[in-house]
């Protein structure tokens, strides 16, 4: 079979998928690029060409810089916490004990639940009048009176990060647990004979086998955390006083709440660009990690 025919056949087989992708991703993207250079509103006419005004206005606005900081804080802290808790959970669930299989299955639950369900549960936990967190903390004498965790700018972002960690650490734990199965028993035994304690065993024996899979988890989670929308929308809608407003919430507000389609499109493209840069940087890191582990 000639290589020309093989190539043609491959493209033919891919064609239906390509057509669908162009229709649902390619075209809207091109349309968004066009829209971002106009002052179009959500309803009404197409708007007038305004050049790079939307971009310059957006990038120079304090709203954007503040939201970018909030998004970065949310992404960095929640992903870092998820990685640490996920790895610790995986190490625990890798030990031999009765009921391990049940615990492994239970651990997946928060991740398997729809985000809206998770977010609603956490709203109940944080509820300022009957929330379980307030009840627990007052009974432990850690706080004097019930607080509105999601209603105070000082605590809302932290409360969101905790909820996000709760939802997403099982994914990291699951990936780490799978990677732990690949750690050769002989190397662990060798490190015991060599006198390595738990920390050095983790550092020199386990971590090299975890690094690659964890890097993949880090890439996936950072990108997701950077474009987070659903959990925040359900729990705080970006408030109070915009203290939990992330880039995706800002895009939504620009485009749909304030009906500034052109401005919203330019912001959406800026977020897309940021996420793409992250993805490319991480992909390079993954390749490097995979290369050094080989």
């Amino acid at each position: 079979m000639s290589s020309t025919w093989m190539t043609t056949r491959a493209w033919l087989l891919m064609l239906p998928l390509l057509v669908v992708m162009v229709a649902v991703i390619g075209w809207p993207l091109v349309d968004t690029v066009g829209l971002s250079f106009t002052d179009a509103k959500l309803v009404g006419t197409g708007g007038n060409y305004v050049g790079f005004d939307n971009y310059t206005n957006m990038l120079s606005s304090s709203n954007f810089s503040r939201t970018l900081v909030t998004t970065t804080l949310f992404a960095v802290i929640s992903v870092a916490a998820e990685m640490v808790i996920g790895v610790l959970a995986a190490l625990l669930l890798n030990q031999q004990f009765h009921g391990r299989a049940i615990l492994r299955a239970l651990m997946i639950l928060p991740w398997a639940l729809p985000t809206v369900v998770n977010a609603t549960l956490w709203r109940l936990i944080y509820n300022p009048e009957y929330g379980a967190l307030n009840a627990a903390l007052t009974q432990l004498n850690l706080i004097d009176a019930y607080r509105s965790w999601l209603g105070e700018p000082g605590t809302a972002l932290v409360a969101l990060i905790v909820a996000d960690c709760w939802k997403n650490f099982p994914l990291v734990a699951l990936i780490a647990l799978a990677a732990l199965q690949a750690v050769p028993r002989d190397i662990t035994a060798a490190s015991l004979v060599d006198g390595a304690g738990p920390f050095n065993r983790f550092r020199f024996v386990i971590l090299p086998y975890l690094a690659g899979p964890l890097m993949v988890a880090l890439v996936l989670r950072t990108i997701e955390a950077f474009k987070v929308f659903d959990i925040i929308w359900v729990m705080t809608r970006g408030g109070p006083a915009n203290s939990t407003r992330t880039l995706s919430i800002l895009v939504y507000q620009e485009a749909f709440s304030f009906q500034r389609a052109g401005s919203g499109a330019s912001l959406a493209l800026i977020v897309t660009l940021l996420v793409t840069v992250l993805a490319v940087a991480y992909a390079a890191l993954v390749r490097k990690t995979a290369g050094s582990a080989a």
Partner: protein
Amino acid sequence: MSALEIRNVRKNYGSVETLKGIDIALQSGEFLVLLGSSGCGKSTLLNIIAGLAEATSGDVLIGGRSILGVHPKNRDIAMVFQSYALYPNLTVRRNIGFGLEMRGVAADEREKAVAEAARLLQIEALLDRKPSQLSGGQRQRVAIGRALVRKPQVFLFDEPLSNLDAKLRLEMRTELKRLHQMLQTTVVYVTHDQIEAMTLASRIAVMRDGRIEQLGTPEEIYNEPATLYVAGFVGAPSMNMLQATVQGTTLAIDGAKASLPLPARFRDAVQDGARVVAGIRPEALRVAADAAAPSVPVEIEVVELTGPELVTTARIGTQRLTACLPPASRVAKGQAASFAFSEDALRLFDPDTGKAF
């Protein structure tokens, strides 16, 4: 005082008894090989010595001190694994020095020990490489180096040559022998390869079903196998086992019109009419040239030239015999011949208990 003493060690996994009471005492500088097929318990015993598994009962002493319950790092042992078990992200230098590093040995002292081990194993040029950049043989040398630098009382080897190809295995075997002759360390070595056991050991413990079938020098194991199992397990090709019946001062070969003289040393041990298994090593057989030595009439069935010898399979009535003959021997398929052997080469076993007379 023994360098290593294993006292009535037993190991159960649930209701399965993997080790059924092992007793071995090893003098300093001895090279003990635990030989047996898969599942015989040899690796379990090694892991118990290393502290990677706990014995259900019994005791293990190193240098007169009981080490049961002692952490592997405090047992004064070093271990070489079948899979090399090198740390993939560390260089050869750090792999070899890892045990010393974990024990807080100063960097310059560590460096000296690593250099010395690397010189002994001729891997000085590889010290800055990672394990992934090494061949199988080089990795095994690094694993041995990692054990050497620790200067432990007892070295444990768990099938260390099994992952190497045939040529490299031979080279490394010689290398291990050379190292042992030079360092005179106490070694416990697990293998299922009887050639490795024969060439390396000062004593061999042949294991079967969690028991020691025979413990002895390679010569004893080869020349005076204590059981049918040992006789069949050690030696390639395996020892010929002819079913026979004692008839006065002769052994009548079952299913054949042939008999052998019953050596005088067995006459008190076996009764007239008793059924026995007559064992003769293929190397002990030769084509009969005179009538002086005991011989059996055979019909040649298959002749295989391996290079140094002619492996000949022949029929004796309904039974078969294998002989390792000199390559120039004049034997051909279908030919009637007579195989002779020295009376001393004949072993007799009880077919019911499997034990040697």
